[in-house]
């Protein structure tokens, strides 16, 4: 049976296993209908022209979370940022692991979607926010239909989350092929601040397909720093659908470190709903072999005096393929918008490719918008110069690549995370010098 048919026909069985509020039930039922109509995206769609899910969809995935798989912290410690104190929401094969997690209800709620969807205490927040900014495309609808588990984070007014929050999804390989559909909701009230680190990690070579949806609401003057670490193994694919709604003077930054996996698609959407907002989208992509990473971003400016800053750096080796599609919409009312976008790429092999496309739709006349895209190779004369000073070829190349990606790394606000990313990059580039630029 095709994956689509399997999902659609499993829906009723799935619905029966969980007991949710009727409003969520209605949302799910509508969503499965939309998925049934739209299905998975194909390359015929403009938005999916360069990313084919065909090979990923052909596996016979188990589609329900699997209970009872435990992992020891020591075996997965390296996937955590463990040298600082953090809250942790950890899932194993789609099921919550209380053993590996550290949650709280003390002033801030860092807990589970499954309890938020069923517990009366959260009803008001769920009614206000659940599925309110997520789009209605096929993949998002599919996730909505099966939404059950994920992270639920609510930072109430005037709170500074006392430590960063890590969201980790592990898959153990207990199934021959597994599909995961985590659903996260993050609500940050007025004047509050939170830092979140998210990672999907497969512990197996069995195929894993994750179709994740995250909704983030940043109320007035809220500050949200979100970091996505994507460094999965060669049979793990990720479709990350992130939707962010920002109110006046809020600042939301999302850093995406895409260091590999099979196919990675990041649908990152920012919707500005007030004045004086800043939206920051940063990314470093370093991939090789036949890996594929597609960043598909949208920033929608609707009110005056807002900014957006996008800076994506990509390094592609061997047969790796990259896509950057950055859409910026500036409504007629959104005067004095400053929207910047840059996408710079280095191709290390003549078989690697990048497709980079800005899409600007600007309806206001008093705006500053700029976009730039570069595709180049490493500078040979710089390499000769560096090697002539005693720096080995591999290290010289790595140093040039570090320098290339450095401004994105610089903007990481958690020092331990920054040094971890540094090490990941050093490992990716196969050098044992952590350049501290």
């Amino acid at each position: 049976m095709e994956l689509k048919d399997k999902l659609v026909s499993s829906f009723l069985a799935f619905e029966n296993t969980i007991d949710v509020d009727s409003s969520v039930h209605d949302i799910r039922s509508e969503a499965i209908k939309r998925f049934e109509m739209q299905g998975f995206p194909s390359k015929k769609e403009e938005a999916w022209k360069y990313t084919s899910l065909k090979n990923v969809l052909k596996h016979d995935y188990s589609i329900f979370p699997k209970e009872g798989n435990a992992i020891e912290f020591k075996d997965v410690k390296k996937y955590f940022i463990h040298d600082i104190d953090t809250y942790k929401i950890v899932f194993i094969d789609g099921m919550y692991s209380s053993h590996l997690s550290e949650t709280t209800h003390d002033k801030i709620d860092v807990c589970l979607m499954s309890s938020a969807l069923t517990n009366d205490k959260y009803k008001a927040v769920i009614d206000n926010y659940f599925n309110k900014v997520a789009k209605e495309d096929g993949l998002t609808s599919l996730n909505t239909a099966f939404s059950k588990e994920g992270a639920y984070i609510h930072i109430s007014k005037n709170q500074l989350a006392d430590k960063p929050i890590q969201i980790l999804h592990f898959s153990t390989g207990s199934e021959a092929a597994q599909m995961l559909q985590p659903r996260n909701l993050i609500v940050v009230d007025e004047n509050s601040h939170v830092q979140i680190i998210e990672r999907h990690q497969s512990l197996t070579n069995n195929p894993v397909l994750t179709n994740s949806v995250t909704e983030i609401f940043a109320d007035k003057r809220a500050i949200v720093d979100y970091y996505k670490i994507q460094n999965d193994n060669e049979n793990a694919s990720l479709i990350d659908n992130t939707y962010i709604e920002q109110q006046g003077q809020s600042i939301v930054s999302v850093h995406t470190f895409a260091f590999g996996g099979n196919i990675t698609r990041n649908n990152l959407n920012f919707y500005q709903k007030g004045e004086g907002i800043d939206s920051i989208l940063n990314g470093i992509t370093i991939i090789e072999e036949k890996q594929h990473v597609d960043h598909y971003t949208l920033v929608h400016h609707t009110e005056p005096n807002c900014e957006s800053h996008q800076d994506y750096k990509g390094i592609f080796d061997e047969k790796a393929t990259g896509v950057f599609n950055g859409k910026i919409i500036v409504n007629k009312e959104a005067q004095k918008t400053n929207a910047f976008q840059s996408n710079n790429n280095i191709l290390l092999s003549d078989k690697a490719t990048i497709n980079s496309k800005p899409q600007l739709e600007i309806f206001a006349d008093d705006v500053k918008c700029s976009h730039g895209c570069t595709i180049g190779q490493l500078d040979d004369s710089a390499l000769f110069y560096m090697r002539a000073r005693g720096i080995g070829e591999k290290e010289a190349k790595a140093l040039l690549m570090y320098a290339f990606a450095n401004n994105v790394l610089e903007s990481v606000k958690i020092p331990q995370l920054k040094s971890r990313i540094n090490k990941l990059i050093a490992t990716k580039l196969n050098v044992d010098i952590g350049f501290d630029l």
Partner: protein
Amino acid sequence: MLEIKDIHASVEGKEILKGLNLKVNAGEVHAIMGPNGAGKSTLASVIAGKEDYEVTQGNILLEGEDIEELAIEERAHKGIFLSFQYPVEIPGVSVTNFMKTAINETRKAKGLEEMPAKDMLKMIREKSELLEIDRKFLSRSLNEGFSGGEKKRNEIFQMAMLEPKLAILDETDSGLDIDALRIVANGVNKLKTKENAVIVITHYQRLLDYIVPDFVHVLHNGKIVKSGTKELALELEEKGYDWIKEEVKG
């Protein structure tokens, strides 16, 4: 120290060095002069190991060892330093971090531990004072937006940091005003010992007033066509290169 025997080198199929011989002993300063396009920078690049140049014949020996098979960085580790005629800009890498990496990579190649941060800072301070380089300069991206003179001074600063056995200075004087020329020359002279050697490539006698050569060679059409002592430089300054070209023909 360095012995170049009948070297022939070409780039893109065109022969540039056509049987060049040169012998430099420890403790000596050699000047190489010659008209534009003679092959001076090519010689420097060939010694440093630049891969665009194909050595078709001859040998280069460093302390008796043939270095033909050595990579660029391995030559650097053995003590060859090239001060570039056109130093390359490297955005995003500060002068300090570049130097740290270069020194520690060289130490690593020699099986030594990384230099302790304290010693590194001390050395950077001393050597930058020697070249009268402002501290602020050291945190800027390497060569990016530097004036011609600043680039050259920074080259000699790096030479001071790396303490090479054989330094090749390719037109280090071009782009320098007289004060900067004095600072650079003074730096080079301070670094000179009985154990190391310097090859100064220049168009002009001017630099040789400050860095006094033991030998002067004229490179023309890919060969050393005349060698002498420092008086030869004065003669060239006075009469130009045409008489040498005539001499070679005749």
